């Protein structure tokens, strides 16, 4: 028996879709739905099973000062690390795209932090920040500036963690910008130069707009990584002093795997998901329209 052509095309299409569909459903959609479900239940404890509690976990969240502090910290962290690491990445890419002695070596040096695991990076930076004999204090000591307890004071703990993130991410983003720069036809720059445009003008009106697709891609990655990567907090401050360096994901880990309050952790995860989804929608719905693809 032969199926009608229309149905065969349908089956063919679904079969092509199947591998991606299975992976997405198993690892993305199903966990999202179960997380939402668990966030509306109580945490099962020993003999006490989970029961339906509705929005209880969300009410508790609204009254939880550590949650609000972690959220504020996360916002500050994202707003600080994302623009700086992207700007730095672009600057480094432009620098190593030009004719520079030892260009390969410089490119490698910029990229090295990306290859290192975050845990190793955090352990290195822990000693950079050590009061007294740490690298930072030794360098400042040359200028007669006394030692500072970088990770141990409320004002500097989070900025110190942000510096580590920028240091680690900028090299990674640089690679994308470098690839994009190499893809831009030199003729465009030359044509502009004949018209009498200066180098800054060419960068601003020709190069940068052509880099916008890359910038969007990097921006998406930067936002995700600013919410996703908390390994260095575990090593360097464990959210301290007094939660001043606790980020949302780190707090979720605390609640889920230290306090074993899994349903509250699920509710917190929903907040993180909502934030990331909003960021993605804004980026793809609004920013993309303003981007010129070659």
């Amino acid at each position, binding site marked *: 028996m032969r199926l009608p052509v229309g149905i065969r095309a349908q089956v063919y299409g679904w079969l092509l879709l199947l591998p991606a569909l299975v992976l997405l459903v198993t690892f993305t959609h199903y966990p999202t739905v179960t997380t939402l479900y668990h966030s509306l239940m109580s945490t099962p404890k020993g*003999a006490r099973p989970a029961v339906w509690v509705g929005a209880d976990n969300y009410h508790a969240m609204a009254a939880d000062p550590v949650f609000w502090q972690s959220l504020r910290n996360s916002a500050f962290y994202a707003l600080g690390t994302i623009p700086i690491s992207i700007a730095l990445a672009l600057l480094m890419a432009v620098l190593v795209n030009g004719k520079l002695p030892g260009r390969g070596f410089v490119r490698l040096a910029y990229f090295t932090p990306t290859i290192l695991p975050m845990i190793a990076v955090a352990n290195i930076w822990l000693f950079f920040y*050590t009061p*007294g004999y740490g690298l930072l204090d030794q360098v400042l000591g040359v200028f007669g500036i*006394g030692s500072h*307890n970088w*990770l141990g004071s409320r004002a500097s703990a989070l900025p110190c963690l942000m510096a580590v993130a920028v240091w680690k991410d900028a090299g990674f983003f640089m690679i994308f910008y470098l690839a994009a720069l190499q893809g831009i036809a030199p003729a465009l720059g030359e044509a502009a130069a004949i018209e009498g445009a200066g180098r800054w003008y060419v960068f601003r009106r020709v190069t940068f707009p052509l880099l916008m697709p890359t910038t969007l891609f990097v921006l998406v990655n930067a936002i995700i990584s600013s919410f996703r990567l908390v390994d260095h907090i575990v090593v360097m401050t464990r959210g301290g*002093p007094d939660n001043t360096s606790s980020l949302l994901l780190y707090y979720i880990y605390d609640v889920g795997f230290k306090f074993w309050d899994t349903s509250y952790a699920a509710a917190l995860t929903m907040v993180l998901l909502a934030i990331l989804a909003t960021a993605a929608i804004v980026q793809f719905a609004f920013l993309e329209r303003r981007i010129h693809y070659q």
Partner: protein
Amino acid sequence: MRRVAGVMLAVMIAGWAGAASAQTTEISFYYPVAVGGPVTKIIDGLTADFEKENPGIKVKPIYAGTYQESIVKALTAVKSGEPPQTSVLLSTDMFTLIDEDAILPWDDLIKTPDDRAWLKSCFPAFMLNSQTGGKTWGIPFQRSTIVLYWNKDAFKDAGLDPERPPANWTEMVDVGKKLTRRDASGNVTQWGIQVPSSGFPYWLFQGFTTQNDVLLMNEAGTQTYYDKPAVVEALQYWVDLSQKHKVMPAGIIEWGTTPKDFFEKKTAMMWTTTGNLTNVRTNAKFPFGVAMLPANKRRGSPTGGGNFYLFKKSTPAQQAAVLKFVKWITSPRRAAEWGIDTGYVAVRPEAWDTPEMKKYVAGFPFAAVARDQLQYAVAELSTHENQRVTKALNDGLQAALTGAKTPAQAMKDAQAEADRILRSSRR
């Protein structure tokens, strides 16, 4: 994680095979090792010796990462229905494991007078964190306390007797002032003392509170006493070390780099675990001393470290095998061997009477300081909802140490938070 799953699978298959032949009993136990190296080798050696002496039993140690990672793995395994038979986890995890319905009291296995005598053979200080409600839930294994390390050269340079560490709170401040050195522009080049306050400041704080003769919680683990006047007083002293007396760096002092600060002569004294004894012995390039913590109203330190727990869902044969193994590994000879090899405090008085231990202590008398301090030791802070209640205290301590709150306010807030969390456990 995947490797652990692989090992677990192998254990399961081996377990079935064992059940089929009904000859050998296989038990798995999670053991916390953050990094491989000497300790894994010691454990491997011990299990091999045990298997040689007990041909019917196979012991599979599974190295599960830090204490925190180990309990995450153990509880995840419990929830998936395939728990290990036994595991070494923090003594303070007792209430958490009971609340999760994951463990059995050892009393259930105790049948002979010999077993009963064994259950009573550990230092009483270590049992404080191992018993609740009249039952014994943990068998002490790798346990520690806080001690004071001091740099004898620094004492000599400051005109102090290098053989006499500070014995009380006043002396610690006085000695600290003499040891704190500043350069011409007023920057400190050497601090008098460092008491770490990152990560788990509550543990170090229990040194101060015990010395001020006050407990932080009740034995049932349902009530904390964070806002008692004596607790606030203890915190005031800790805060004053940096803010008033200026003998300790301000802000949060990192636990992990404190031994390094000591080796680099950035601090002349430090409080840290006895578990750092071997580390200090290897890395300090100057003569150093180890002493009990200074006293105020009394001497005191909390204990710390890990206990053996007995997990549910094992066969009677496996439970008997676990009991045999744990009894064997905590026997005087093995406990002494373990203490000498690792620096942990051997958990039974008899272990200190073995010839090996006597020889070790004669050559390295500091090893006995922790033992001698045990008579003053109290249980480490542990309650129901343990990590959450502890975090309330940690946050308060860090708030006070960084100057964001006064000690009284910080402890009042911490107590209010702990009360809120523990409300449901008191029913």
